[in-house]
């Protein structure tokens, strides 16, 4: 397979910030694959994508998109790319069609070709019958779909998608995930950022886990889960106010438990054998007057990987 994105030691230090937002990130994306950057909010995913889309100048390092340096040939890079930003970047008082025509013009398109492409992407996102309506009249999910469509207008061979499903209803999310798979099936390479482990698992050929501006692990889902071995994630539901440091410390002492983290009334434990350790966990909780209302034992997944690598839950 051909390498289409080659990132080499990208660093971004914002003026006045105590620490760099991105600290020497390197990875490669192969043509035709979906590569996800997975990490919590503030991990450096969007900053990395902004540098790759030539919006931010890297403090150090470089990247090549289809052989073009983002530092030396930004205009060439921009011609190759489609970008779907995290925020909905559309004009609310223009109709969906007017928005698409405008953005098509920004990609250098015009005339009959542009008109045809606008109709095609409207069809792709299933909004052709509402194309005359202003964006301000759209639901959040419909806006997301038009936001998505803009990035596809000029038939890019590579699309950057920055958390395209944030803040939308399950149906629209499903719609977008299906579109990503469809486009990838048609040969489009996708660099996808998300903090939803499920999305990364479902879409990606390979995943890079990013935290505090560093790439901490990279590989296929199978390769990544092997990092945690045969460990399980045990999630105990308790009352939020009972999630005390004392309880977490006690659970950490349970035989076979490696890591403990808690948020919003859920305690997550990484354990060698979840089933075996469960009775002792319940006993430890009950001994401190904590009532466990629900238990969930999961096979190793990306969340377990993140917990294993950082000691924190992905949503922390």
């Amino acid at each position, binding site marked *: 397979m051909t390498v289409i994105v080659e990132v080499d030691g990208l660093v971004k230090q914002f003026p006045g910030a105590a620490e760099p937002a991105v600290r020497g990130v390197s990875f490669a994306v192969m043509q035709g694959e979906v590569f996800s950057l997975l990490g919590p909010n503030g991990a450096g995913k969007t900053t990395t994508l902004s540098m790759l889309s030539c*919006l931010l100048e890297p403090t150090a390092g470089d990247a090549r998109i289809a052989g073009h340096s983002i530092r030396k040939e930004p205009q060439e890079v921009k011609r190759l790319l489609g970008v779907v930003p995290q925020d909905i970047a559309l*004009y609310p008082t223009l109709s969906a069609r007017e928005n698409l025509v405008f953005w098509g013009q920004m990609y250098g398109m015009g005339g009959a070709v542009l008109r045809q492409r606008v109709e095609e992407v409207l069809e792709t996102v299933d909004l052709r019958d509402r194309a005359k309506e202003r964006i301000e009249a759209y639901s959040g999910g419909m806006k997301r779909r038009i936001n998505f469509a803009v990035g596809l207008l000029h038939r890019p061979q590579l699309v950057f998608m920055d958390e395209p499903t944030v803040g939308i209803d399950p149906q629209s999310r499903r719609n977008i995930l299906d579109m990503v798979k469809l486009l990838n099936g048609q040969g489009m390479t996708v660099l996808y950022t998300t903090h939803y482990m499920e999305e990364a698992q479902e879409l990606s050929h390979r995943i890079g886990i990013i935290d505090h501006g560093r790439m901490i692990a990279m590989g296929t889902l199978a390769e990544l889960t092997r990092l945690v071995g045969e460990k399980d994630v045990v999630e105990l539901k308790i009352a939020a106010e009972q999630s005390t440091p004392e309880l977490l410390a006690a659970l950490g002492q349970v035989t076979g438990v490696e890591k403990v983290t808690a948020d919003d009334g859920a305690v997550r434990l990484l354990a060698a054998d979840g089933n075996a350790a469960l009775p002792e966990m319940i006993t430890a909780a009950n001994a401190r007057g904590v009532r466990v209302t629900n238990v969930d034992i999961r096979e190793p997944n990306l969340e377990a990987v993140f917990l294993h690598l950082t000691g924190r839950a992905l949503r922390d």
Partner: protein
Amino acid sequence: MRKVFSIAWKDLIVTFRDRAALILMLAAPFALTLAMGFVTGRFSGSSGGISGVRDIPVVIVNQDEGELGAALESVLTSDGLADLLEPTTSSDLASARRLVEEDQVAAAVILPAGFSASILPQDSGGSAAQVVALEVYTSPGRPTTSAIVRSIVEGFVSQVETGRIGGQVAVTQLIMSGRLAVQEAPTAGMEIGARLAEDPARTELITLRSTTAAAAEAPRFDPLAYLAPGMAVLFLMYTVSLGGRSLLAEQRDGTLPRMLTTPTSTAQVLGGKLFGTYLTGLAQVGVLVLASALLFGINWGRPLDVLILILAIVAGATGWGTLLAAIAKTPTQVSSIGLALMLAFGILGGSFFGGVQLPLPMEILSKITPNAWGMDGFLSLALGGTLVDILPSIGGLLAMAVILFGVAVVLFRRRGLARA
């Protein structure tokens, strides 16, 4: 260039679909013009609803014994201006000033001794004395009418200046073509000056404004011809600040960064935004001028001259809008500063109380506003002036635009458009 037009056109559409913006851009200046028209009695006259300003009391103190003093006095007392002005003459400077201060007359036109001699060559040496300034002493209580008097006198001075410059150019051209030796220049200049002074055509040139008025009808001054441009330029400042605001709003809303991820250069994006602001301002002033001409019958002047003036005014104002966007950090800041600037410029530049004689420092300061230059130009055109008369206004506005754009571009470069 296509992308610049695309961005500008998009901005124009977005602005004209914003109801709140439309109210402030078009409805507010129109309504204020209308309201002030009622206040000034513009709509309550008996002559078909257009009463105009008549019989402006003005006192002339002619201490000059030369031709120019006499010429100006004859202009002010001519039949052509008989309906507009009610002139009296006085030899007592102090009492004339007192009449103004007591608001018994709108203005005193003071022609100091030696005025003509300071302009026209008097001896074979050809050396001009230091120019003695004319003075128009105006009543602050009569801003509109005193502005009319001042405008008439300015028109006269402008014609005299034209004659002088014509003489200088003629001498220069003779020297450069080798037809005249440098040492002969003073004599030739004096002769040209004397000819200009004696030539009947030249006399007509000085009194051109009065002659024009007499040929048609008395140049009735319509107060709306001052109010309407005043309001148009005042609210133009709102429109250009809206343009500056849109740049920062696009940054906030993510559309500007998205534009910069497309193969569109920073210069194209900035150019498109500026051109969009310019087009919007142009459309706004154009609509106001057309609507007020059609609905109120305002005579703005010759259409081509008015158009050229509008192009220059919008350029100057857009310069301010661009600078605002370069200085401010958030759209809210642009709105706040823009509103303050709009009001300050409106007061300083004469949009509210046109023609008020400001103290000299304020008069100088007013030249930083598009309002002052614009009002001068509009008033001049409304009183029958031509493109030549408004050239200083156009020059001032274009210089303003160039300087402000330059400063804004430097500031944008420093902070980076992507992080604007």
